């Protein structure tokens, strides 16, 4: 399965086209913004875990934070979007998740919000909270979502972009709204501590309410990037009363024929009201 067409459209318009049209680029897939792809992937993007707000000084010139976010969008984003749209399609299959609050941890350019919007439908109402320490990522995410709106998608989605979950200033009274927490390719980052991450997110969940909470973890299958998953899992289960629904390796098809991606994923769930009594 490729990308949903509306997501593909905004990605082309806001990421692929600007890179292609940039004077530094000769061929967008050989040397985007003037840097050979292999170097982009390893050094500019650090495999996805770079300091995306800092300028990057390479042999052939300087890249701004915004440039680095764009390159992330070109080389890495698509696969993550495919995984998360597949995951949310399954999760919302013939089910209604009504007016959820989404906490997308290490959100990059709003990857989880775009994927969930696709699964919930054009007019779906939800609150999206994208948390990322890189402002360049959030800025790109906001532009993608604005473009989505001009296509008639995400028009009923309230958006917040934060550097840290602690910045969330939740003003609604506590409610039964379901919460969906996404941690997609975040836990490989050396700057993240799994327990602190979970505790920080759950502190906000307590302010939001007492509704159902689901946590979706995705990452590559490489062993070393998942080394924090056991701590992440234990903290959710032992300290916050979650149950493990699934923790597995899997694959998704990414288009015709044999094309597929492998990934590591886990899903956790806590029933509404469960914090009250246990």
């Amino acid at each position, binding site marked *: 399965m490729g990308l949903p067409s509306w997501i593909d459209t905004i990605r082309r318009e806001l990421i692929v086209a600007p890179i292609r049209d940039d004077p530094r680029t000769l061929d967008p897939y050989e040397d985007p913004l003037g840097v050979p792809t292999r170097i982009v992937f390893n050094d500019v993007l650090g495999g996805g875990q770079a300091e995306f707000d800092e300028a990057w000084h390479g042999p052939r010139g300087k890249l701004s934070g915004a440039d680095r976010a764009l390159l992330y969008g070109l080389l890495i984003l698509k696969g993550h979007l495919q*995984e998360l749209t*597949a*995951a949310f399609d*399954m*999760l*919302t*299959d*013939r*089910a*209604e*998740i*009504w007016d959820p609050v989404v906490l997308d941890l290490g959100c990059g350019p709003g990857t989880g919000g775009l994927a969930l919007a696709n699964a919930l439908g054009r007019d779906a109402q939800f609150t999206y909270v994208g948390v990322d320490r890189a402002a360049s990522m959030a800025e790109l995410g906001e532009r993608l979502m604005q473009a989505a709106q001009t296509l008639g998608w995400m028009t009923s989605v309230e958006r917040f972009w934060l550097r840290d979950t602690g910045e969330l200033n939740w003003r609604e*009274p*506590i*409610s*039964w*709204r*379901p919460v969906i927490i996404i941690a997609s390719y975040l836990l490989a980052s050396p700057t993240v501590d799994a327990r602190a991450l979970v505790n920080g997110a759950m502190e906000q969940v307590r302010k939001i*309410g*007492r*509704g*159902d909470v*689901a946590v979706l973890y995705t990452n590559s299958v490489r062993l070393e990037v998942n080394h924090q998953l056991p701590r992440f899992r234990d903290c959710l289960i032992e300290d916050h009363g979650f149950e493990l*629904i*699934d923790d*597995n390796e*899997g*694959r*998704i098809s990414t288009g015709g024929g044999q094309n597929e991606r492998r*990934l590591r*994923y886990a*899903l956790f*769930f806590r*029933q*509404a*009201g*469960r914090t*009250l*009594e*246990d």
Partner: protein
Amino acid sequence: MRLPSWTEITGGPREVLETPLDQSLLVAGPPGSGKTALAIRRAHMVADTGQRVLMITFNRMLRRAIGLLEGTRALEVETMHAHVGRDFTRRTGALIPAPPNRGYDWIWGEALAMLDGHPEAGPSHDHLIVDEAQDLPSEFFRYARLHLAPVVSVFADENQAITRQSSTLQQIRRAGALPPAIMLVDNHRNTPEIVAVANHFHAGRLPTLRVRRPGGDRPRLVHHSDLGQTCAMIARWFTTTGGSIGVVVERNSTGWQLHRSLRARVDGRVDMYDSKHPNEGRIELFTPGITILNHRSIKGQEFDTLFVLELEQFLPCSAAVQRQIMYMICSRPRDYLFMVSVPSALSAAALAVLPGPDVLERV
């Protein structure tokens, strides 16, 4: 990658229906979340396996409503006081201990201790189902577990408690040795406008109602200088709008006066429920018409339209229990809610605790 769908993992109604019939259960949910309907379904499922199932309700009107809802299946439905009073006497040959002149305020500790001397009579049923459990004293759940049935399914809303003897979810859970509560979180009964009024009186730790219906009319506060005007308004409403209409009055004298004048004006069913002369067995709650009742007996009921009179009994909500009563009353009507001050206008203090005109229109 294979993930279950949200409906497969979330609890609520599905989890209630899927809990094995030989397991005890605690279900908590706000008004209008479908607790009573689920309680009846569970009772039927248990009865279909040939087990002895007993449904316990808080008041006689709810017992009547359940009797009507479940139709010809002839479930055994009883109020807690009627059933336990008789059960205790059957087991011990004595009356359940109560302080002089405090008929229903039983001395549970003493009663439970007396039963220790009569271990021979085992449980009377296989499965007990309790609705509106928050209004029952927590000791009842201990009594139920030890003497009435090995399996107990309990449906409750701790924000709706209206009696001094009421129990919190934790107390019920502890006394009945029940598993953690399954929450039902969505209100399917009331319009958002009615929910806004109910939520104004919401107190407690649980979030307010999450409403799932499209918008309707804004509830209203009306003033009448005499009961005749109120009667005319209700009669007119019945003629033009119809459906089921509830009228909440606290004084039986007011209730009977209304009953008389409505009977004279209305071509249709007009009933008054008076707990002193229980007549609920004759009230056809679910046929269109007007039912006059007090706050205790409206518990667990729903109507298309509700008129609430004698508000000064609950306002200005100086006690927490009055807030809870207002919350419970305001969440009864599906479509229309009228609060009526008659014959004297509400005091400034009472008006001050009502929601503003943007939520409760003044006319």
